[in-house]
């Protein structure tokens, strides 16, 4: 479950990671376009106009004599509005009108990049700011769905703002780039709404959120399609869509923030929420108003561009200030590796540059030199890493190590520990290596015994752990590895860890005690069951012995007596009265032997030992059916297969059938009973099903005995004795099914 989720996260994260490349690629593309786009270094007073607003100071246009306020009429004899695409470096003849005079000026075409530096710079700055913040958070916590969404939003906004901001003069903007902005604007709005629904608090349930978001997301490509066919209509619809969705997002954000967030979250997300609101408001005003009222410049464009930066900056501030997503650790690591890189650079390059001059110009010697240098870097790497880490930790925490990291890791390790060995390992090994301690030792005893004495000078902190009324454990901590005393912060952290360790240790002791008790209960249950089995077995043996004794001795005597009387009755010299009394005697003898046989049969069904379980069951069922006037159907495997069963299995199956039939006649009021006994390879299965009243079947063996179903419990015990399975299914009004299952391997001993 967990691993599946992780795998899914990493696949999803991997797919998203490709998107990281999109913004840098587009920035590169933008630079490429502007490098190759030709223009002239003057500005018009507004897009579509032909009046010069200003000229680039020190540029070619200024040198040619172009001034603000000039009206450009033609370029190379082409009307200005139709003219496009000069070639870079080529000179063009501009015909202008100034104060009623017409002048011709020769102005060379230059690269757009040269003229547009300010706009392009700010555009790239804004786009990379969004890109950077999103990417930073994503790389840190890409498995958070919230962070993934935020990442998508930042990347989309970066794509959306890049081109409009970097071409402040639409008359020189290459066509087609607006597509990025239209698509991006719609997608960003939809993503913002999505984000508002799940952050800072999740609103509604997942299904309702999905149902609400699907139409919003599906409108994004639709609007893009509309824009492709009709630019003006598409832009207007986009503006309406964007403003509606963003307004909805703002409403949801305020609602969630105001009514649904816990106070702590509210404090932490305040900066983000209001940063986002401040950042989006001018854009909404600018784009919505200007598009809907058709180019009404309410707010200057540069203000919109700048306000956009507020969102990532506020997010960054909140992240750093409140350490959202554990950002301090990330920065800590980044700094460590930055220092480390500088260190390696210095260690590697410094001697190289220094000695390069004096080295002979021979490849082999230079290779050996580089090899030795590399070895040296490898040798000093760990030393540098430790120094860099310490330096950064000192900058960050003013101490020797990453305190929050230690507390976090040890707490997690303690929470995972459930035995005293694990806790011992955490406190002795992990703590001492993480906190760089010379010694850390956990001593666990049995009760209030004396603790082993340690040299007082080396023990800097001592904690005793209570369990119930005892103090069975003591944790002692020594100096730092470098011989320093423990600082106040160290003591504070150790106290926190000790409190958690005490809880973990208490839990471990409790678990041990519980486990011991469980073991005892299990053992006694096992013993009880053994006794019961023994009891059942010996009772069965006793009955068999009694039956055999009866059969062997009194019955045989009566049989012999009967034969002798028969012979006597057949002798010729016999008078009538003697004959009559002999006949009476013989009748009596037969009655007696018949009664004894019945007792025998009840003690031990004779069929079991001679004809096997099948025959015995057939006899039992026939007799029972006659006695109770219930229709029965018996389905039994051929006798030969059943005759080779172990005697214990046969007799216990027989007894279960006997008990089940007896229960049916006592309680079920059944009209029909189905009995089947099937022998397949090494498996024996018996089912006894009636169509009687049924009852509410109890769950466990314990329930069986608790509810006085001793007969049922007995069946179960018997089948347990031979290592088989017994089950009972019953529903009130729908009869009862008893199933018994036994496998040959189970009884091989």
């Amino acid at each position, binding site marked *: 479950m967990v691993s599946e989720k992780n795998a899914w996260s990493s696949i999803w994260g991997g797919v998203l990671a490709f998107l990281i490349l999109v913004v840098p690629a587009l920035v590169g593309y933008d630079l490429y376009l502007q490098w190759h786009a030709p223009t002239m270094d003057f500005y018009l007073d507004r897009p579509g106009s032909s009046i010069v607003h200003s000229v680039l100071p020190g540029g070619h246009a200024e040198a040619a004599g172009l001034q603000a306020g000039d009206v450009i009429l033609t370029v190379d004899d082409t009307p200005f509005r139709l003219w496009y695409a000069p070639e870079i470096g080529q000179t063009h003849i501009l015909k202008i009108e100034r104060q009623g005079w017409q002048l011709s000026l020769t102005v060379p075409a230059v690269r757009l990049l040269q003229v547009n530096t300010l706009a392009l710079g700010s555009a790239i700055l804004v786009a990379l700011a969004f890109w950077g913040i999103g990417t930073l958070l994503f790389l840190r916590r890409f498995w958070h769905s919230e962070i993934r969404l935020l990442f998508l939003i930042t990347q989309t906004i970066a794509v959306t703002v890049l081109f409009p901001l970097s071409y402040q003069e639409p008359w020189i903007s290459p066509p087609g780039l607006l597509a990025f902005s239209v698509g991006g604007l719609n997608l960003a709005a939809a993503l913002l709404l999505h984000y508002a629904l799940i952050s800072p608090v999740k609103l509604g349930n997942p299904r309702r959120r999905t149902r609400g978001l699907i139409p919003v997301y599906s409108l994004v490509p639709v609007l893009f399609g509309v824009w492709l066919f009709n630019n003006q209509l598409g832009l207007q619809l986009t503006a309406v869509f964007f403003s509606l969705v963003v307004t909805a997002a703002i409403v949801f954000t305020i609602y969630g923030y105001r009514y649904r967030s816990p106070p702590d979250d509210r404090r932490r997300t305040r900066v983000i929420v209001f940063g986002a609101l401040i950042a989006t408001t001018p854009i909404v005003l600018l784009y919505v108003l200007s598009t809907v009222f058709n180019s009404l410049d309410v707010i200057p464009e540069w203000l919109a561009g700048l306000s956009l930066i507020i969102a990532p900056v506020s997010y960054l501030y909140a992240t750093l200030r409140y350490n959202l997503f554990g950002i301090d650790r990330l920065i800590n690591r980044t700094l460590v590796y930055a220092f480390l890189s500088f260190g390696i650079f210095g260690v590697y390059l410094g001697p190289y540059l220094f000695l390069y001059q004096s080295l002979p110009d021979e490849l082999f010697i230079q290779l050996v030199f580089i090899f030795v240098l590399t070895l040296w870097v490898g040798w000093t790497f760990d030393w540098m890493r430790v120094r860099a880490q310490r330096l950064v930790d000192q900058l960050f925490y003013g101490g020797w190590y990453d305190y929050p990291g230690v507390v976090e890791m040890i707490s997690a390790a303690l929470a995972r520990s459930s035995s005293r060995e694990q806790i011992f390992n955490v406190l002795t090994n992990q703590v001492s290596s993480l906190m760089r301690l010379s010694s850390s030792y956990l001593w666990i005893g049995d009760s209030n015994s004396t603790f082993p004495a340690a040299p007082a000078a080396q023990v800097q902190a001592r904690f005793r752990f209570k369990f119930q009324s005892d103090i069975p454990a003591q944790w002692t901590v020594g100096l730092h590895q470098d011989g320093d005393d423990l600082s106040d912060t160290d003591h504070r952290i150790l106290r926190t860890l000790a409190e958690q360790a005490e809880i973990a240790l208490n839990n471990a002791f409790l678990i041990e005690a519980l486990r011991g008790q469980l073991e005892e209960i299990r053992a006694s249950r096992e013993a009880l069951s053994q006794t019961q089995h023994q009891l059942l077995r010996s009772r069965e043996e006793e009955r068999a012995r009694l039956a055999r004794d009866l059969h062997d001795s009194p019955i045989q005597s009566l049989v012999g007596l009967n*034969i002798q009387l028969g012979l006597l009755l057949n002798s010729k010299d016999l008078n009538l009265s003697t004959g009559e009394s002999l006949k009476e005697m013989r009748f009596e003898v037969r009655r007696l032997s018949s009664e004894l046989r019945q007792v025998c049969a009840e003690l031990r069904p004779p069929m079991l*030992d001679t*004809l096997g379980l099948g025959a015995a069951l057939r006899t039992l069922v026939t007799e029972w059916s006659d006695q109770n006037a219930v229709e029965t159907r018996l389905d039994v495997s051929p006798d030969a297969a059943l005759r080779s069963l172990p005697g214990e299995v046969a007799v216990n199956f027989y007894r279960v059938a006997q008990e089940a039939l007896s229960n049916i006649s006592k309680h079920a009021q059944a009209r029909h009973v189905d009995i089947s006994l099937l022998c397949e390879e090494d498996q024996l299965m018996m089912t006894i099903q009636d169509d009687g009243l049924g009852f509410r079947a109890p769950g466990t063996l314990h329930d069986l005995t608790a509810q006085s179903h001793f007969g049922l419990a007995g069946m179960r015990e018997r089948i347990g004795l031979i290592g088989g399975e017994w089950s009972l299914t019953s529903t009130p009004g729908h009869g009862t099914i008893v199933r018994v299952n036994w496998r040959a391997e189970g009884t091989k001993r």
Partner: protein
Amino acid sequence: MPITRVLIVDDQASFRRHLRRLLTHAGLTVIGEAGDVPEAKELTRALQPDLAIVDINLPGESGVSGTPQLMALAPSMRVILVSAYDDSGQLLRKSAVEAGAETFVPKDDLELEMVRKWVQKTDSDCDSNLMESQ
């Protein structure tokens, strides 16, 4: 009248004694007594009796499963199974016949008249066989 040579298979010595007397009275000749199936097999192989009276409840292997083994050793021998138990469901009789025995008789029903018929039956069987062969 040919001699009918009988083997008694029963684990009870007293019953064997009583049965021997009964059979002798009826004119049959008891040529051997066995206490269980292995012993009976040895005697059957050695003596080739005409008839074996076999108890069902023998120690170890029962008379029902012993019957086919005995008959394999002496193909012309007839087997009658007996038991102290009576047979309410005709089950014993059925399994006796299935095992190859001629019939099943509860020990209580052993009568002189019946035993005499076993001899006669042997003869009539022979007669009918003869007639069929003619």
